[in-house]
């Protein structure tokens, strides 16, 4: 377990990157390199990071980065892992860094294939719950009721539960995280790096531009997602499910903040009715019963 003081001073996400102010994914990227160092090859399918890195001939990354097709991060990582093994390079971690669209929608096939083949790499989905790069369209990770440009009246369906889909692949490590809890995220990355096989980490990465909240509130938004129980921090190591702090305290329903406290700060949930909010509250309750069962097993 690492503490904030022990984090390396080196920065591999360089100054002058092109992320929006208050970008949750950019904060996550900075933490990613703090945890993994620079012996990394990064695979980036089409996503906000295509923009964040800056245009040719510039880059804001001090690690090698291969930009690759939208649906193919899992396949690209597979090719790199195979090549590095042939070249007997053992000190480099292959990391696929993809948005929610590139993971839960168009990229799910290549990711599922890579996981089933037990490819030795870390896949990170940074989830801002919509297609951010193209201006906020609905994805399979968009939550119920959220405004996007393709759901102007709010999404009618629920969010796809991607981490548990990945857990069903029986990979050695699945975890959820949020940049609002940096130590938790970093420790999960370190654990993933030390584990052989496919590791999947799903980050809830708040996005002021798309979620319509003030850019200074990103960390707070992530905290509220966790404190209300709408985003749950857990890890599944070799099939063993464990809730992480502070989510572990929220098994007790009374410790959870009402979901309204999270929803009300975001313009994207503006059109939710009271009934919608009650419905979401009820789903959170049901989800937590599922987590309780998983945690007790």
């Amino acid at each position, binding site marked *: 377990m690492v503490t904030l003081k022990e984090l390396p001073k080196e920065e591999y996400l360089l100054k002058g990157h092109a992320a929006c102010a208050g970008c949750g994914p950019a904060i996550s990227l900075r933490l990613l390199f703090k945890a993994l160092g620079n012996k990394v*090859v990064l695979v980036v399918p089409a996503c906000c990071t295509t923009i964040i890195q800056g245009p*040719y001939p510039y880059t804001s990354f001090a690690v090698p980065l291969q930009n690759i097709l939208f649906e193919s991060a899992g396949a690209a990582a597979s090719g790199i892992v195979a090549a590095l093994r042939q070249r007997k390079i053992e000190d480099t971690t292959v990391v696929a860094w993809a948005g929610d669209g590139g993971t839960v929608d168009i990229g799910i096939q290549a990711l599922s294939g890579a996981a089933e083949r037990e490819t030795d790499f870390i896949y990170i989905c940074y989830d801002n719950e919509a297609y951010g790069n193209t201006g906020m369209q609905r994805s399979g990770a968009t939550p119920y009721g959220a405004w996007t440009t393709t759901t102007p009246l709010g999404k009618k369906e629920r969010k796809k539960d991607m981490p548990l889909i990945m857990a069903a692949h029986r990979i050695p490590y699945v975890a959820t995280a949020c940049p609002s809890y940096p130590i938790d995220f970093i420790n999960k990355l370190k654990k993933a790096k030390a584990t052989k096989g496919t590791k999947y980490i799903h980050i809830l990465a708040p996005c002021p531009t798309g979620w319509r909240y003030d850019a200074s509130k990103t960390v707070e938004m992530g905290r509220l997602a966790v404190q209300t129980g709408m985003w749950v921090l857990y890890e599944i190591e070799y099939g063993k499910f464990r809730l992480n702090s502070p989510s572990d305290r929220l098994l007790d329903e009374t410790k959870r903040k009402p979901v309204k406290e999270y929803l009300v700060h975001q313009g994207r949930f503006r059109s939710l009715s009271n009934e919608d909010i009650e419905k979401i509250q009820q789903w959170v309750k049901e989800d937590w019963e599922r987590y309780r069962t998983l945690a007790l097993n």
Partner: protein
Amino acid sequence: MVQMKIDTANHIAGYAAKAARVKVVAAYPITPQTTIVEKIAEFVENGQMDAEYIRVESEHSALVACISAAAAGVRAFTATSAHGLALMHEALHWASGSRLPLVMAVVNRAMGAPWSIWSDFSDSLSQRDTGWIQFYCADNQEVFDTIIQAYKLCENEKVFLPAMICLEGFILSHTYAPVQIPEQEEIDDFLPPYKSGWVLDADHPYSHANLVSPEWYMEFRYMIQESMENVKRLLPKIGQEYSKRFGFEYGGLVEKYKCEDADLILLTMGTMATEAKTAVRRMRKDGLKVGSARVRVYRPFPVEDIRALAENARMLVTIDRHISFGCEGFLASETKAALYNQKDMPLITGFLAGLGGRDVTARTIEKITKRSLGYLSAGKIEKEIEWVDLKE
């Protein structure tokens, strides 16, 4: 010692990948390609080939895995057909745009609907604009030789582009024929270890293929075009070196047969040229001055070779195992385009034959030639496109 094998072109493609010391193979099954990747799986599993074999979940992933393996510093190979190739379409662009020297066997098969598994060039010709060098082989030996030559060509710093080695489904893919496989040491001497223009390397961090503004994009495209032009210059040299070492020669981009004094030259691709040669031999006996030219490399298109052929011939006849709907076969179109603005253009007529695997025999080609000779003596083409042996 040279090994003599009697095997299918697909198995021979597998032997070629092994001989080229390919380090990563990513593969997905599709008829009639499958026996290539089955053969390679056998080589890898029994330890004859030191390579990683990635059993991907789609052709799209097969090509992307090869792209990334090549980007991470090793020689990569895959194979596909028809719908598999179509599924790879966007990755084809990504491979050439990334300037990675991949080699892929394409076992030509017709595109559906309706389903067909038989030979047709519509799969690979639909991909002509993706920035891949395209070879079309006429026999099993050429499949082996071209795969080895292609790696040498693609890994040349003046090229750094990927190549498709096209071979017709069943006609070659599943047909046994004798092939000579040179000594491994000699192949190693001809084909040095993998070389590419860039490598993903943690000690030398670069971002690859990031966003390019209109200020630069055209220059990147121009460089690909320049490399394609370099292929025209380099391939004949590589072919000659190969021939000197191993004895097989394919005439660079276009293989010519009895063209020197021919009034009429048949332009074909792939195995149809073998039938065309037989037809030419027979018709020559009857005193007809005909010749056959096989377009072995379709991208870059051998414009200069076609112009040279047109200098002496009075008529060119293209036979396409392909149609661009609403237009004609690509070989017909591009032959005409190559000659426009030239002085004393020969007559050009285009035939469509053998689509979806229908046999095109020497007899069919004789029929086509005689019809064309009729046009030649009349001094005009009756029809710009003709479908051969079409049921009414």
